[in-house]
């Protein structure tokens, strides 16, 4: 559509990146925090006792609690703390699929293994909530968020491919960085990070899309298995070779077997600490089934599984981790995305790659402004509305989101501990503070808005460890000697974030001071320098 292939692709890259860039930035930042969701969970429930209960004790507590709750459920889930994904023993329940085929309502609870009662700690969404925001957003049903995130991810996929085509010198870009050269530097930063993290970027985007395939391309499964969630489960079970789960309820009640016995069998087969999760299909029915999954230790997310009869406790079948090629490919993609297999070093590498991803998106958004600024500022009637909108959205998203996330953590420490709706209010506060960051650039010149928001973000993250120390008595002076790494890691990461944001604020400030001194420049010219 342009004069040449590459020009067309450059155009496509610019616009697909711009349109959804702000949402993608949010997705990258929250998803990246999700790499340490369990550690954030621990930090956000400081009074929760350290979990030392044995696996058996946890299973007893979970079964007791689930049976106490009563009701008829399609499925129960038990996630002991052997699982890296659960900082605390967690139980889940799911209602039968709705008449329209949609997945039944789900709920979850953290349990204290010693009392089999809900965990006695402040209510919070925890790190899980931040992590969930990266695919479920907030204040909307999954049916809406799945489409929104799916469409944005598809834009990103197109932006990545067209961006790669636009770049002819992939190898040279590895070694090209020309700092302090305005637009040129932004392009170099954007390209350098993108080339460096391209495999990660491609993997995370494509696998993210594959997570949503049942929404975006639901027709593929429903063409063969019929519509709705239940049929989709049947497809998954058939693909995995779980024939024993392709059953219906009998409708006659039968007590659930003692789950500790089936767990013992699994541990006997796999060794201790190898049980990751239990899923109980049709609990209370005579056709109940128990599926036990093993720890994830490889990028391949599917693991060995044992399926038991839920009433007799008899082992029905063993499912190997590896199955047909297409399933292995699918599970490896999703496993790479979720990184549950990753140890500490790899986990931090994931985190850094995610930061690079967020920086690529941010630098792309800023480049759009920097490139157009010379022409826009020369216009008779001032810059276009669209240009000013992008400038404002950039400030409010890139710097403002950091402030909103800090506010979320402050809310966790400062809202009254026994306030019933506090878990919801932590999120409300995040989404109340964030809009302020979008309003701020309207009343302040853009360069000032950048400097001020980065300064606030830096101060906020510097203050978090102090507020934590005062409110919990588990500040850095305690957590480091006690080798309390969830707390120490969180606080140190806050300080690192504060240092980073403070440096950005300081450098932007420096950049725009000499210009102001040299010539009495109009605000718009300052804007040019500030984000250059």
């Amino acid at each position, binding site marked *: 559509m342009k004069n040449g292939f590459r020009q067309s692709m450059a155009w496509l890259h610019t616009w697909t990146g711009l349109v959804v860039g702000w949402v993608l930035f949010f997705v990258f930042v929250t998803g990246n925090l999700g790499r340490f969701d369990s550690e954030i969970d621990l930090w956000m429930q400081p009074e929760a006792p350290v979990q030392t209960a044995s696996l058996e004790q946890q299973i007893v507590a979970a079964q007791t609690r689930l049976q106490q709750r009563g009701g008829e459920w399609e499925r129960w889930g038990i996630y002991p703390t052997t699982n890296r994904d659960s900082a605390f023993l967690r139980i889940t329940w799911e209602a039968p699929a709705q008449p329209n085929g949609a997945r039944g309502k789900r709920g979850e609870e953290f349990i204290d293994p010693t009392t089999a009662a809900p965990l006695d700690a402040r209510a919070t969404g925890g790190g899980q909530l931040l992590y969930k925001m990266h695919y479920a957003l907030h204040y909307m049903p999954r049916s809406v968020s799945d489409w929104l995130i799916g469409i944005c991810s598809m834009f990103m996929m197109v932006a990545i491919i067209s961006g790669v085509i636009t770049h002819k010198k992939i190898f040279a870009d590895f070694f090209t960085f020309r700092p302090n050269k305005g637009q040129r530097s932004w392009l170099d930063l954007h390209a350098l990070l993108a080339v460096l993290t391209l495999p990660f970027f491609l993997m995370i985007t494509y696998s993210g899309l594959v997570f949503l395939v049942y929404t*975006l391309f639901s027709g593929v499964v429903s063409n063969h298995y019929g519509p709705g969630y239940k049929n989709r489960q049947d497809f998954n079970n058939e693909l995995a070779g779980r024939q024993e789960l392709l059953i219906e309820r009998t409708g006659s009640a039968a007590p659930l077997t003692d789950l500790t016995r089936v767990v013992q069998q699994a541990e006997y087969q796999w060794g201790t600490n190898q049980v990751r999760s239990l899923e109980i299909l049709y609990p209370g029915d005579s056709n109940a089934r128990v599926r036990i999954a093993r720890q994830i230790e490889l990028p391949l997310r599917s693991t060995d599984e044992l399926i038991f009869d839920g009433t007799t406790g008899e082992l029905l079948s063993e499912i190997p981790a590896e199955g047909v090629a297409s399933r292995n490919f699918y599970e490896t993609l999703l496993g790479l995305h979720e990184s549950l297999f990753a140890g500490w070093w790899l986990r931090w590498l994931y985190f850094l790659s995610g930061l690079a991803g967020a920086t690529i998106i941010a630098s792309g958004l800023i480049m759009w402004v920097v490139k157009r600024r010379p022409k826009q500022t020369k216009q008779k009637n001032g810059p276009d509305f669209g240009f000013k909108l992008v400038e404002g959205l950039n400030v409010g998203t890139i710097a403002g989101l950091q402030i909103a996330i800090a506010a979320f953590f402050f809310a966790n420490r400062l809202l009254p501990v026994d306030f019933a709706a506090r878990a919801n209010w932590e999120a409300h506060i995040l989404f109340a503070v964030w809009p302020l960051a979008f309003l701020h650039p309207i009343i302040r010149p853009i360069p000032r808005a950048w400097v001020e928001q980065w300064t606030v973000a830096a101060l906020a993250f510097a203050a978090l460890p102090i507020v934590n120390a005062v409110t919990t008595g588990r500040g850095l002076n305690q957590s480091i000697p006690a080798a309390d790494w969830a707390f120490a890691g969180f606080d140190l990461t806050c300080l690192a974030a504060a240092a980073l944001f403070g440096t950005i604020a300081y450098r932007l400030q420096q950049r725009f001071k000499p210009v102001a001194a040299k010539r009495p420049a109009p605000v718009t010219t300052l804007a040019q320098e500030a984000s250059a």
Partner: protein
Amino acid sequence: MSSKAKNSERDLTIYRWEVFGRVLIAVFGGYIFSIGTALLLTHILPFERSSLVMTANLLTFALYTTAIIWVFSVKRFRTLWLGLAGSLAVLALARFVFSQVNL
């Protein structure tokens, strides 16, 4: 935008409509093409049903991305229409042929 297109207001309007048209074709035409191809594959590949469906699932986004890139890389609008109509016709024909064979 090419320098020629800037010359007149009319060219600019045409250019804008063309971009709009391409977006529509890329989003909806590309979607139909990718799900159509994926479904066709599930009817012709010699795997088990569940494996077929998963293979198609995995390919959909690659097909969709390729289609979108193609829509924006084609120079002339006419080629675009021909490509879209042609690929959909081929898909429909193949689907028909294989449904006959399977019977």
